[in-house]
C-alpha cells in the first residue's frame, strides 16, 4: 500500500537553509547539503528545495545546490521558487530535480503548467499554491496569493486547483498562509476540500507544530503527504519520531530506510 510521505522543505537563500515564522522573518538553519544528508539518514521520503528570493544570481546557486545534493542523496528532489519559463523547468530537471514546483509563474503565464506538462510529463510538474483565507464583503473567500505570499490575485483556490488538474499538473502543494509557520496545525478544512476536488495527490503545507498535526492532515485533511520545515530544522522532532508516531496510530509510512552498507557481491 502506498505510504504517506513526510517531506521536509528546505527554504534556500544564497545556498543556506532558512525558514521563517509567518513567511517573512527568516532564521538560518544550516548548509543545504548538511540538511539534505541529515534528512536522508532520518528517512525523509522526499526533499523540497525552495529558493525564497528567486533572483537570477540565487538561481545559479540553487542549480549548484541541487546538482550537489543529487550526487549525495538518492531520493526524490523537488525544486521551487523563481521558476518562470519552460527553460527554467528544463534547467532544474537537468540539474537533478525530479519535480519542479511552479507557483507565481502559473498565475502570470496561465499556459505554463500546460506547456510544461506536455513537454516534460505531468509526473514532474507540481502546482504550488499559496492560499489565504480573506474576508470580502463580510464573506470568507479562499484566495490564491503570489510573489511569496505578498500579492493577492483575486483567484479562487478551488477554481485554481481545477484548472491545474485540467492543465496536467501531477501534484498540488497547498500552502495555507494563515497557518504557515504558526505551528498551530495545518488548515484541515481547506486541505480536505482541495484533495476531494482532484484525483491527483495533494501535499499539505504550512502550520505543522508536532506529529499529531501531521496525523490530522493525513487523515481528516485527506492529504497524501505532509510538508514541514520549522519543526524538523530546529530539531524539535526528528523525522523518525514523526514516522514512528504516525505508524503507531495506524498510518502506513516507510520505516525501512535505515542506512546500512550496500553488499557488493
Amino acid at each position, binding site marked *: *500500500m*502506498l*505510504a*504517506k*510521505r513526510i517531506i521536509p522543505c528546505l527554504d534556500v537563500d544564497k545556498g543556506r537553509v532558512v525558514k521563517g515564522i509567518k513567511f517573512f522573518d527568516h532564521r538560518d538553519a544550516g548548509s543545504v547539503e548538511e540538511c539534505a544528508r541529515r534528512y*536522508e539518514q532520518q528517512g525523509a*521520503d522526499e526533499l523540497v528545495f525552495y529558493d525564497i528570493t528567486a533572483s537570477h544570481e540565487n538561481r545559479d546557486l540553487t542549480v549548484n545546490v541541487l*546538482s550537489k545534493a*543529487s*550526487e549525495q542523496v*538518492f*531520493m*526524490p528532489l523537488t525544486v521551487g521558487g523563481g521558476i518562470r519559463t519552460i527553460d527554467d523547468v528544463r534547467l532544474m*530537471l*537537468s*540539474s*537533478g*530535480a*525530479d519535480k519542479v514546483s511552479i507557483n507565481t509563474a502559473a498565475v502570470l503565464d496561465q499556459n505554463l503548467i500546460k506547456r510544461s506538462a506536455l513537454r*516534460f*510529463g*505531468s*509526473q*514532474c510538474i507540481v502546482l504550488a499554491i499559496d492560499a489565504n483565507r480573506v474576508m470580502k464583503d463580510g464573506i470568507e473567500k479562499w484566495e490564491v496569493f503570489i510573489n511569496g505570499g505578498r500579492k493577492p490575485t483575486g483567484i479562487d483556490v478551488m477554481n485554481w486547483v481545477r484548472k491545474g488538474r485540467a492543465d496536467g499538473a*501531477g*501534484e498540488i502543494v497547498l500552502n495555507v498562509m494563515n497557518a504557515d509557520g504558526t505551528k498551530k496545525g495545518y488548515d484541515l478544512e481547506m486541505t480536505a476540500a482541495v484533495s*476531494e476536488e482532484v*484525483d*491527483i*495527490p495533494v501535499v499539505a503545507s504550512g502550520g505543522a507544530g508536532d506529529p499529531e498535526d501531521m496525523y490530522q492532515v493525513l487523515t481528516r485533511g*485527506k492529504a*497524501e*503527504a505532509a510538508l514541514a520545515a520549522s519543526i524538523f530544522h530546529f530539531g524539535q522532532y526528528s523525522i523518525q519520531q514523526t514516522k514512528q508516531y504516525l505508524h503507531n496510530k495506524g498510518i502506513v509510512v*516507510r520505516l*525501512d*530506510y*535505515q*542506512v*546500512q552498507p*550496500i*553488499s*557488493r*557481491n
Partner: protein
Amino acid sequence: MIGIIDYGMGNLHSVLKAFEHVGADVEIITSAAQIDAADKIVLPGVGAFQDAIRTLHEKELAAAIIESVRSGKCFLGICLGLQLLFDVSFEDGEHQGLGIIPGKVKRFDFSTHPHKDILKIPHIGWNSLKMRNGCPLYREVADGSFVYFVHSYYVVPDDSSVIATTTEHGIEFVSSIHRENLFATQFHPEKSQRVGLQMLANFASL
C-alpha cells in the same frame, strides 16, 4: 561497462550518479554502436511513451536495444524503460512498443473502484514490493521493501512467469519483471535510497 542510454527522455543524471555511488563502471551512451559495445545496458526514461518510442526509432536505437537483449546482455529498464519493452501502450491513443515482452501498458482507472475517492493518479510515492520469482536484482533486499514510484500507467504481461514483483495501488499491479538477462522496474531504484542502491549494485555485479 554499463551503458545508460540517453535518448532525451528525462533525468539520467540521477541514474548515472547512483551507479557511480555503488562503484559501478558506467557511462552515458547515445548511439547504436555504443549499445553494441557496452557490456550491460540501462534504459531509463520518464515522459510520454509516444515521444520515447519515436525517438528510439529516429535515433536508430530501437533495433540495437532489441538485438542487445536477444544477444543475452544484461538489460535494466526503469519506469518508461520498462513500459517501452512491451508490445503496445494505450497512453494517449495506441502506440507500438519494442515488442520484447508480450503484453500491454494501461492507465490506472479507479472510476468504478470502491475506494475511488482516496486513490490518486499519478501513483506517486513509496510503496512496497511483493516478491514473486527470486529475481537476482533483489538479493539482500527484503520482501515488502518500500521503493519510489511515479507513474500513471502500468504493464500487463501476457506471460505471468516474467513477473518479479507486484505492488498494491487500488489493484495489484506488476511493479517489475525479470526474464533471463532482462530486468525492468516500474519504480526508480536510483531514487529509492539504500534499497534501490542495493538493486543497482546487484545489477552491476551480475
